[in-house]
């Protein structure tokens, strides 16, 4: 974990409102599911850093020749990301990380199924890179909202898509795809909209399948000290069995069965 200034290597528009950000960073080891907090403005407004998952590590072993560091992928949704989208190569950003627990590696022999939608795909790429094989289930409203699938394919990942309007893959929700994938030797990794995570979690719980979800919460510090990013979790062994965990430091990855979905 470190807090340093990092140079922007590239900040390329992927599609309307979607960007790929390369940051020069002599980073400590990054695990799949780790995230970083970026300082997006020098001014006091917006005040807080913003959290972004690590998409992949670049340089050294990576394919990019533009520098060594990490690549993030972001969508412009508000003021901070708008400011970020206007930054150019050579400018610098404060970076704090790598943060969080990351995805636990799958146990030997387990069949890995990744479930995602939207920007939830970001942390799964690093996971996929380090897997011998696996399946990615992508849920979206329509074909337009599916992306990065080729990148996963190149890694040898099987891709299945579900769209609400049927414009790509099967018509319907991603949980319909998931149902067919579940068996006792499956482990599920999910990241995406909270509704999706909840449905995925329930499905896995019912099927007795282990399921890890990566959650998002507004964050101030990213390092477990402001206690701002709390989610309620259930400790199945304890008597006083509900308590708050911090998404930034206890998570962002949780065992789906431990999350108190009622409060999310």
């Amino acid at each position: 974990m470190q807090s340093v200034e990092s140079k922007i290597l590239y900040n390329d528009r992927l599609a309307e409102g979607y960007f790929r950000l390369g940051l020069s960073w002599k980073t400590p080891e990054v695990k799949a599911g780790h995230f970083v907090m970026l300082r997006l403005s020098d001014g006091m407004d917006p005040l807080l850093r913003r959290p972004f998952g690590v998409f992949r590590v670049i340089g050294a072993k990576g394919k990019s020749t533009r520098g060594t560091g990490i690549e993030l992928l972001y969508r412009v949704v508000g003021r901070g990301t708008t400011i970020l989208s206007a930054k150019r190569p050579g400018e610098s950003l404060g970076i704090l990380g790598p943060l969080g627990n990351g995805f636990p590696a799958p146990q030997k022999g387990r069949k890995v199924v990744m479930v995602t939608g939207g920007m939830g795909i970001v942390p799964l790429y690093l996971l996929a890179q380090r897997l011998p094989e696996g399946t990615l289930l992508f849920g979206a409203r329509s074909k337009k909202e599916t992306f990065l699938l080729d990148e996963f394919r190149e890694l040898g990942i099987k891709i299945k898509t579900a769209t609400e309007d049927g414009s790509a893959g099967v018509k319907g929700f991603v949980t319909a795809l998931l149902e067919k994938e579940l068996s006792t030797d499956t482990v599920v990794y999910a990241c995406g909209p909270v509704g999706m995570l909840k449905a995925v979690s329930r499905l896995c719980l019912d099927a007795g399948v282990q399921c890890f979800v990566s959650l998002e919460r507004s964050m101030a510090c990213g390092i477990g000290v402001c206690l701002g990013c709390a989610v309620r979790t259930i400790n199945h062994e304890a008597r006083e069995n509900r308590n708050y965990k911090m998404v930034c430091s206890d998570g962002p990855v949780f065992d789906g069965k431990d999350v108190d979905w009622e409060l999310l």
Partner: protein
Amino acid sequence: MGTPLKKKLPKKPLEVAIAGLKFKNPVMTASGTFGYGAEFAPYTGLEKLGAIVVKGLSLYPRQGNPGPRIVETPCGMLNAIGLQNVGVDEFIEKKLPLLKDVKTHVIANIFGETIDDYMEVARRLDRVKGVSALEINISCPNVKKGGIVFGTDPQEAFRVVSAIRKSTSLPLITKLSPNVTDIKVMVKAAEDAGTDAISLINTLTGMVIDVERRRPVLATATGGLSGPAIRPVAVRMVWQAAQAAKVPLIGMGGIMNARDALEFIIAGAAAVQVGTASFIDPDAAAKVASGIEEYVQRHGVSVRELTGSLKLA
């Protein structure tokens, strides 16, 4: 600008004395923004700090509020953490030992829902090695008194501080709420009750509404406003408090850098605390300390001389 004083800079120009304690510099961390201290070791030099003030401690562990607990506001943030903490006993057993080799003061921030709560927390911290002083957070509702906030009623403030005064031999810092008409009345109440120092300000009460959903963003509806947005109010209150106070003041509210900290010192604070800034830069408090050192050298004036040195027209 700022004609340097010609006279010699005293030795240890950053050192300040508060409540019988010597601090190597006037920069402390603010409670609730620095965890229990050790969390920041990877990012900053803890020994560069004048003191570490830890997250508010209660008698028993507290779960805190449901989320969302924070929301960003213009140049600030609201928080409604609900005083989640590990409880005083676990603090003493597990958290405090992590700081035992760090050469700086540790100040325990405490709170309760009744006066008895406060007294018992103070009692358990008394004579605990490694705790230099107590900071009393009186911005809590007194559940026994139907929720009236200790920190906005001078009589309640007097009662709780007097009670704690009797439960401990540790130096006491009373932390005032800014949500009052006249801060001087609260200063007086805390002093009458025997406080050794006063810190201010705690957060201003605020609210943000999600207009699309027509709901408060925070699960608790209101929360505490901190960050640079509140600095002008905080500086004003420290200045007003300084007109009335006999005990030393510790100023805070929106300090992001040394310049900001110096506003508080010049207004009358003997020391300062850095809060929200530590979220944005975990090394912020240490940087404030070195920035003050630079100023002190450049102006040839010690922090002690700077305290309350504001010249009015």
